């Protein structure tokens, strides 16, 4: 998609709002003033990138060996690799969430879908203690888990696109019922997996790097190509900015929304496989707990507004990495992990205030006032 097209769409963003909002150009101007003329600062990935680099710097400052990597047991070993490996499920879920949020939706059922997919995979692989026997062949188990996750996504999409429910409520249904279904599959127990080939998904290494990283990379690359090399990205933005106008203009809005939720479901399913393979078990009640909130946070941190429309896949990946690095920093600094939630809360408050045109306008006024007399001579 060309930059001009994207800009022309973003220029009309204000039409999507009903309220008396500050029009986007003013907001942009306020943001530009912060940049102080630096071209880089105007790029919308600037703030997420700076945040990530700051976090990495903090980690390095407190732990000198943070950036250190070494080759051990046939693969790369180090804190950065660890962060990437742990962030893979969150990256996947965030990518799906980005597409849903871009269509003006939200998917709060991803945590439950993670639990369902993990439960299905664990049940089909079975709890044989020998370690080399599975109940069903492993590819079949993986396909079944992903199939169920796809069905979950389609169910959400149908409720939103066909029935016309509000996205938060449509996905709330699956969020509530999903954990019940996951517990139904696992029989209320935590299924431990002993089948060793399955562990490769979440803790195996390919070419010296974690295999989960490659899965996340492939999904990201395919999605990125689909939204930048085809008209798909443009259509999704159009639906998010003004669904009615997009439909009138001939965009198949309903199908796109359905596809976005289905994709989000599959992403959650893959994340479920990675998580269950990494911890070698499936827990219907706790797998993917609060993952939906982390994913929404990652998408928001990456600069995608919750009001839909313009989205950034790279931003969401950076957002997910920020969250994982933050978690890592909190653990490695020896701060009690309980503070994690408070830090996250403060970050969310700060990010959403910075994204609010009203807040930026007020800050701009506050900053202009003292400098105004000085400018005059």
């Amino acid at each position, binding site marked *: 998609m060309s930059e001009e097209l994207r800009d022309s769409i973003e220029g009309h963003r204000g039409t999507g709002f009903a309220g008396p909002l500050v029009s986007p150009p003013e907001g942009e101007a306020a943001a530009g003033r912060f940049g102080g003329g630096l071209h880089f600062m105007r790029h919308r990935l600037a703030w997420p990138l700076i945040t990530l680099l700051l976090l990495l710097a903090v980690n390095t400052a407190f732990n000198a060996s943070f950036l250190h990597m070494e080759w051990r047991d046939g693969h790369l070993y180090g804190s950065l690799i660890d962060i990437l490996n742990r962030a893979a499920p969150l990256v996947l879920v965030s990518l799906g969430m980005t597409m849903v949020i871009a269509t003006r939706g939200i998917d709060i059922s991803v945590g439950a879908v993670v639990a369902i997919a993990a439960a299905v995979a664990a049940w089909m692989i079975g709890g044989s203690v020998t370690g080399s026997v599975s109940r069903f062949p492993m590819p079949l188990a993986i396909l079944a888990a992903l199939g169920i996750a796809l069905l979950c996504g389609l169910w959400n999409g149908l409720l939103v696109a066909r*029935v016309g429910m*509000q996205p938060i*409520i449509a996905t709330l249904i699956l969020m509530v019922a999903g954990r*019940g279904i996951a517990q139904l599959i696992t029989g209320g127990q935590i299924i431990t997996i002993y089948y060793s080939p399955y562990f490769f998904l979440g803790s195996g290494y390919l070419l010296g790097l974690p295999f989960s990283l490659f899965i996340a990379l492939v999904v990201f690359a395919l999605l990125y190509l689909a939204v930048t090399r085809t008209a798909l990205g443009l259509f999704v933005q159009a639906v998010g900015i003004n669904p009615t106008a997009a439909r009138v203009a001939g965009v198949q809005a309903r199908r796109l929304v359905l596809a976005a939720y289905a994709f989000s479901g599959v992403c959650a399913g893959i994340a479920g496989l990675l998580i269950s393979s990494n911890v070698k078990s499936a827990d219907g009640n706790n797998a993917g707990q609060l993952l939906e909130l982390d994913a929404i946070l990652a998408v928001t941190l990456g600069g995608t507004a919750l009001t839909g429309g313009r989205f950034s896949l790279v931003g969401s990946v950076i957002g997910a990495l920020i969250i994982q690095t933050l978690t890592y920093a909190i653990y490695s600094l020896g701060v009690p992990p309980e503070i994690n939630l*408070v830090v996250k809360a403060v970050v969310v*408050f700060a990010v959403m205030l910075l994204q*609010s045109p009203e807040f930026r306008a007020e800050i701009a006024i506050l900053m202009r006032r003292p400098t105004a007399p000085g400018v005059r001579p």
Partner: protein
Amino acid sequence: MSSVVTKPMGEALPRPPAPAAAASRFNPKYLPLAVTISLFVAMATMGSVLYSGFFSAQVFLNLLVDNAFLIIVAVGMTFVILSGGIDLSVGSVVALTTMVSAALVEHHGWHPAAVIPLVLLMGTAFGAFMGFLIERFRLQPFIVTLAGMFLARGLCYLISVDSISITNELYTDISQLRIPLWEGASLSVGAMIAVVVLLVAVFAAHCTPFGRTVYAVGGHEQSALLMGLPVRRTLVGVYTLSGFCSALAGVVFTFYMLSGYGLHAVGMELDAIAAVVIGGTLLSGGVGYVAGTLFGVLMLGIIQTLISFDGTLSSWWTRIVVGVLLFVFCLLQRLLANRTRTSS
């Protein structure tokens, strides 16, 4: 008091339609509420037929006793949803209230008479802060209250990671106090508070300027603004009210559990939203009844009671049944919304 007791038996409906008018032309806007109440009566009847000992006053009063905190939280949530917003922080504010109460009473030796007003004030201020952010900076309620949820849960863990049990005499006395009604059936203090909150909320929603403004803002914010209604004050007001209700529910929860713990009331926001939806309140705002929320909570309660009476069904069936109920009611609301749009 008797009117509340007879409600679960399905006799006294908490809305005032003229009987003749209701019989001749039933207003479709009462349909979700009517479906909820009929379903509740049907479930109560089914339980009474299937299980011996189910049909007793105490079983039904226990629905109030065991869900008192949920009723209070859901009442606050009803106002937020009526105004067109949502509050995800309620469960964690309940947890924070239990934690602060327990820490102050047990570790710092404060008197409960000082602690309870303090925690109520704290919850109210917390709600007002979120309402201020939502209203002043036009932020999305979903994200603001989500951050509020993280914050309140995090603060719980900052106080203590472990559960603090309460041994203070006043708390244990209130927790064990039962108010006898008749034939040995009784209510707890928490249930009494819930009933009072409910009655006040029904009055506030239908007979005060604040309540009418909440409906107006939820119906169409722009119109409400053009009508000269105090929209901004009301928006902050509903989140403040929800914060107060959560804190009050936290106090009742402290009496119920006699402990403070950061993992108390996990997922209560979902139960509260489910109860409000099942009670017939539209999530798009502007349509619904506080009294419906009572039946939403009672419905969740009776599902749990039925499952525990059955004994062979596992606990996770509760979640699945609640999910199915949510689906049915949302579908019903959509169908109704479509029909009124085509007819008008």
